């Protein structure tokens, strides 16, 4: 397990030695981007109002305090289930040039291909740790698409050593969750055989 701080803008060569299971921290620009934002860009063809090239996105819907005069403060922010964005992510990576996708849980074949072809990472921030994450956000620089409501708006955050981030898909397309799944399913079958012999309660 190795620790590394990545700073945006991120280049392909910054990521080439990073492998699944590594721990990284992120400094620079991290933009919250989830269900509707993905759908708008990929399905509806609406251009994103923020340039993601070399930057990072966060599958997250934060709680934000509105201090007035376009001044906002992150109260709590943490990752949401990344798999919901699987349908769009490969094209999203190709279209935007995003380098790091921060989320929760695994992603599938599409994202693997996107990460391999365009040299990007999917990383996991341990979910539910939203106050810790909020304290790593230095400030909200901009907000876009506020019509989508607080969770779905694009909050452009400046972060410092944001993490721990656990690499789940690397630039070779290796996918730790997919590998784990094979092992989990095998063990599940063993457990089913074991337990089902002991629950014959209907005589």
């Amino acid at each position, binding site marked *: *397990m190795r620790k590394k701080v990545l700073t945006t803008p991120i280049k392909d060569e910054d990521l080439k030695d990073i492998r699944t*299971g590594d*721990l990284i921290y992120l400094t620079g620009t991290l933009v919250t981007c989830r269900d509707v934002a993905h759908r708008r860009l990929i399905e509806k063809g609406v251009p994103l109002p923020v340039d993601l090239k070399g930057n990072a996105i966060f599958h*997250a*819907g*934060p*709680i934000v*305090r509105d201090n007035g005069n376009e001044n906002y403060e992150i*109260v*709590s*922010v*943490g990752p*949401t*289930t990344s*798999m919901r964005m699987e349908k769009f992510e490969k094209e999203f990576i190709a279209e935007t040039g995003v380098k790091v996708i921060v989320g*929760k*849980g*695994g992603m599938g074949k599409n994202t693997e291909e996107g990460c391999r072809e365009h040299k990007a990472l999917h990383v*996991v921030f*341990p*979910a*539910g*740790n*939203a*106050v*810790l*994450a*909020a*304290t790593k956000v230095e400030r909200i620089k901009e907000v876009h698409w506020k019509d*989508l*409501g*607080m*969770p*779905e708006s694009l909050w452009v955050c400046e972060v410092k050593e944001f993490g*721990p981030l*656990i690499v789940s898909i690397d630039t070779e397309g290796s996918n*730790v*969750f997919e590998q*784990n*799944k094979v*092992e*989990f*399913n095998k*063990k*599940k079958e*063993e*457990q*089913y055989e*074991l*337990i*089902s012999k*002991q*629950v*014959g*309660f*209907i005589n």
Partner: protein
Amino acid sequence: MEKVQMNKKQEVEKMTDIISKFITLVSYKLPKDVETKLKELSAEETNPLAKIIYETMEENQKLASELKRPSCQDTGVLQYFVKCGDNFPLIGQLDNILKQSVYKSTKETPLRHNSVETFDEYNTGENIGNGSPSIFWEIEEDSDKVEIYTYMAGGGCTLPGTATVLMPGEGYEGVVKFVLDRMTTYGLNACPPLLVGVGIGTSVETAAMNSKKALMRPVGSKNTNENAAKMEKLLEDGINAIGLGPQGLKGSKSLMGVNVVNTARHPSTIGVAINTGCWSHRRGKITFDANLNYEIGTHEGVTL
């Protein structure tokens, strides 16, 4: 005992204020049973990555308590399970009190705006909406008290929820398969270590309700039926052995426990449902007497 004469309007305001503050507390501090179990799981963990995740969780909960901020950004759609005495003075006002408490706490904590009107597909921006929060009622005879469970479940641990009706021929073996399959497909993304609620009954809605009630039962509690308790233990050990670990990234244990709640079934069916509670299991219990003196049953050493 506090004895203050108040008119109904003042009483409603007082109760709304207390419940609103209680929701805020539940958003930043986990109940005692969950805190204790997480400590135990963290101490037992041997996988280095899983250990880092437990350390992150501990640091987060400490920060959340200090800063009084929601420990998880997804503060859910509030759910209430109410057991109300038939003589509780505000029985008729309670639905409104519970809804307004969510609104008030959303502004004051703040909580996330999690109420999207369906079909019209817009976020109300108030965290309340048509049928939201959800309130489930039970009436208690010859009582002037009310017992209220509040529950804040995010989208992540709501997603694995599922119910089906099995043929009796599939038996309890079918129940085991149904639960285990859900763990490896959806459970690992629902923020383990999980509390798994399994409901058994006749149909999908009875089983589903039972499975959610199971999540209100304390971590470490046992079903009073011997066979059901056996099933709880078998499933807990079995799911732990699959090795999902915290965040589904492998680890020694994957669960805080399995709670089964069961009711009688139709001879031709076995209704079964699963609900999962994430590690950040934000459940709280508060009881009021007729004078609105209250007692918090789930959190120790706290003031509202």
